[in-house]
């Protein structure tokens, strides 16, 4: 309502002129409004009931609606917020014959009604018997601040924070007074900081240089983008050499504040790059770790590893087709299924081809490459060459907002966690189970293990199955991050090999650290060099790295490692 009085105050300052008549008309209008406002407390005194106020909304007159909103607020009814929200979202209707107001959801040609007095279901009705209560810009603005002040009183700090941010988007005298009112009573730190940031931004418009200076100092280090924009505006030189901010001291303070903000921002940008790098690295580790097992333990090169990941991704797609009602659970179901599918194919490859080629690593490379071509073509024949849409479950969508400059998307976060879980399980399997013991024994000395009664054939098949199964699991993760198509595997196979070579063969920790560092380096280079060039630089760096450490970060040592 304050904005209306502003218009009123403006009138006396208006000088007579061509617009005089118009201004006078406005003045009259304003006067009328003031009268209306004055009338309101009186109405409040009669304690207009919530029900009556609701009835006042059933009109086409925006002024009357505005008054009705005031009455609703005054009524302090438990359902006020819901009604105001419905009005803002355009789901508030009144019945044409008796002007009763309902919250309604449109269902085809009918409306599903909700009685705002009791918030209970009021059945369905013909849409043509009802009129939607419309809003205009002015009214929406009023509603928004009304809702914000409601939310500011909400017991949930997150709701209050969201309300403050909402208010900050359109700061005016109204919202400032709401914020100021809340400031003293607010207990939550984050909300209080947000409020004082908002108030400081408002203070930048103050006529008093001292107030502006204090506001600038208040905003120092704030990560609010609005604060940054406003401060930048202060120190930006206009074309005529003047500044938006007339006071030198305030400008200097603003520069210092901007500097500080920049520092924080770049700090968080670095954190973000690091996190992106770690999540990319996790994908690489997931892709490479199965390879590290088959390559490290068995000394065979599995060029079809990428295609096994592809199978895992397609498994996720098929599972989603089978359980369309439970997309959220489908990904979790897909993990073991993908493990079994890819692992099974892996065992088939091992029994059918690999076991004839032990000790001839270059030939395993060629044979498995042939397998990869066949797998790709099979997938193309079954699912076509087009990418398949794999849905992201709701629990993986969205992001975790740490602060205004730094947020983490859930899918990236889950990939990091998922990779750590897979890694931990794998370590457990290799270190604590009898299969793991046999696998390690075979890796170290095949002949000796054999003579100790280890069935190396069986261990080989299971090891290959394990590595392949993990590729399938990696494919489930990839289905959430990238396009699922027949070429999915090819785009990861070279990167995976690079990780294994970088980390050192036969060492899972090497794979972990190798993958993570490659991911981070790749992400860190990207802003400077672009994605493709970053990739090229990493490849070149890796080739140079092999000069220094031909056997990777964590080489196997000793006589066994020779040749």
């Amino acid at each position, binding site marked *: 309502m304050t904005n209306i009085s502003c218009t009123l105050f403006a009138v006396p300052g208006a000088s007579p002129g061509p617009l005089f008549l118009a201004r006078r008309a406005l003045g009259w209008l304003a006067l009328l409004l003031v009268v209306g406002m004055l009338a309101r407390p009186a109405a409040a005194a009669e304690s207009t009931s919530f029900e009556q106020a609701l009835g006042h909304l059933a009109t086409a007159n925006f002024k009357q609606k505005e008054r009705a909103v005031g009455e609703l607020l005054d009524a302090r009814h438990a359902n006020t917020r819901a009604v105001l929200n419905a009005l803002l979202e355009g789901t508030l209707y009144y019945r044409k014959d008796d002007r009763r107001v309902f919250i309604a959801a449109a269902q085809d040609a009918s409306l599903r009604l909700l009685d705002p007095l009791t918030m209970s279901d009021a059945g369905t009705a013909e849409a043509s018997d009802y009129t939607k209560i419309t809003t205009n810009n002015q009214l929406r603005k009023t509603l928004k601040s009304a809702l914000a002040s409601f939310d500011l009183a909400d017991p949930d700090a997150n709701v209050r924070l969201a309300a403050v941010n909402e208010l900050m988007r359109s700061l005016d005298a109204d919202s400032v007074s709401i914020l100021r009112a809340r400031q003293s009573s607010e207990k939550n730190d984050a909300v209080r900081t947000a409020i004082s940031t908002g108030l400081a931004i408002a203070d930048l418009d103050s006529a008093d240089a001292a107030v502006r200076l204090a506001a600038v100092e208040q905003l120092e280090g704030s990560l609010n983008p609005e604060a940054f924009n406003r401060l930048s505006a202060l120190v930006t030189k206009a074309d005529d050499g003047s500044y938006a901010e007339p006071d030198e001291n305030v400008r200097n303070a603003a520069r210092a504040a901007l500097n500080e903000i920049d520092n924080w921002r770049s700090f968080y940008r670095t954190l973000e790059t690091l996190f992106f790098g770690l999540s990319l690295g996790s994908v690489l580790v997931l892709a490479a770790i199965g390879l590290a097992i088959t390559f490290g333990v068995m000394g065979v090169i599995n060029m079809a590893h990428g295609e096994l990941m592809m199978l895992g991704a397609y498994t996720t797609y098929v599972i989603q087709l089978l359980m369309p009602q439970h997309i959220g659970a489908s990904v979790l179901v897909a993990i073991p299924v993908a493990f079994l599918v890819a692992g099974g194919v892996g065992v088939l490859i091992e029994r059918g081809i690999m076991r004839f080629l032990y000790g001839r690593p*270059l030939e395993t490379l060629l044979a498995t490459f042939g397998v990869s071509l066949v797998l790709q073509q099979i997938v193309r024949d079954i699912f076509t060459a087009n990418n398949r849409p794999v849905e992201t479950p709701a629990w993986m969508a969205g992001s975790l907002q740490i602060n205004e400059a730094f947020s983490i998307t859930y899918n990236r976060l889950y990939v990091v966690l998922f990779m750590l879980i897979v890694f931990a399980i794998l370590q457990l399997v290799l270190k604590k189970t009898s299969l793991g013991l046999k696998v390690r024994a075979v890796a170290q000395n095949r002949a000796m293990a054999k003579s100790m009664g280890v069935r190396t054939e069986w261990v080989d098949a299971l090891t290959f199955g394990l590595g392949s199964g993990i590729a399938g699991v990696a494919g489930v993760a990839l289905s959430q991050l990238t396009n699922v198509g027949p070429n999915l595997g090819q785009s990861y196979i070279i990167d995976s090999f690079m990780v294994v070579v970088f980390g050192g063969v036969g060492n899972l920790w090497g794979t972990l650290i190798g993958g993570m560092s490659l991911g981070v380096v790749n992400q860190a280079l990207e802003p400077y060099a672009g994605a493709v060039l970053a990739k090229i630089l990493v490849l070149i760096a890796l080739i140079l790295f092999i*000069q220094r450490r031909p056997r990777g970060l964590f080489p196997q040592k000793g006589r066994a490692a020779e040749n």
Partner: protein
Amino acid sequence: MQTSHPAIRLLAGERGTQVFLALLLTVGVAAPIMHLAFPEGSALHLSSYTMTLMGKYMTYALLAIAVDLVWGYCGILSLGHAAFFALGGYAMGMYLMRQIGTRGVYGDPVLPDFMVFLNWQELPWFWHGFDMFWFAALMVIVVPGLLALAFGWLAFRSRVTGVYLSIITQALTYALMLAFFRNDMGFGGNNGLTDFKDILGANINAPGTRVALFVASAVALGLGYLACRYITLSRAGRVVQAIRDAESRTRFIGYRVESYKLWVFAFSAVLAGIAGALYVPQVGIINPSEFQPINSIEIVIWVAVGGRGTLYGAVAGAVLVNYAKTYFTATIPELWLYALGTLFVIVTLFLPKGVVGLADKFTSREPAARAVTA
């Protein structure tokens, strides 16, 4: 048996070499005559398409020989030879682009169309000189050769061997592919170089030019074969095979293994570059997909199919597999990848010596190819 000079043994010949050279000579002479002397419609007429296809196979065969030299004889499984091939092809393509002159879509006398399209104002420095054939021809040899020397020096010096080497050669081609896909590299990006008009002043599509390119490919294949055969017959060839079989042992009797590997690798890269340079004018285009890792692996499978460590086996493999590819992709394209994939598996499992080894077995002669395990 007194060991004679390898050149003498080369001239004396062995059966495989004699058969190969006789076949090459026959095809090299007969195909152009059948193309030019017999009218279209005649039973003996060879279409321009078929002859160009044969020319293409010959460049592939030269490429296969290059791979056989490093893999079959020296034990280096290079998954990067498609890169050397493509680099040679690009060098030739750049020459052909400069010959277009004002006949391009935009009619710019200096800048190739794609540069005009990208709004470039002047020719990048590395495009200078490619208007001269001799310079381009030099680059066909120098660029792949130098890259192989630099890369090989880094790799062999630090004793990167076996699958590690295969993987980093693959990474090399992959990096090059990514680089050549970028528009700002200045090699036409995605589309590569194409729309060629002239080569050495002759219309690139004229029958005479086609014949000349075919003959040039045949000659290059013959000379490349003889050069590789000479190397394998020389003492150096035996050292190289010793390196393949027992690298560290070879070191202990005083050979600088790295040096041998490096020169063989670089020579092989140069052969691949020449093959690429002859390939491009015959197919009329070069683009970054030539760098695809699968291409390099395919070359290896040609050699494996033919029989490695024999040179003529590589030629046979290149022609057989590519003929199969042409046939399949024309008639039943969806089966080609199945066929190729199965071929990879069958050859590695059942035909370690390739079709040449198989043929030797049937004619029950001392196998010309020595048993090889990589």
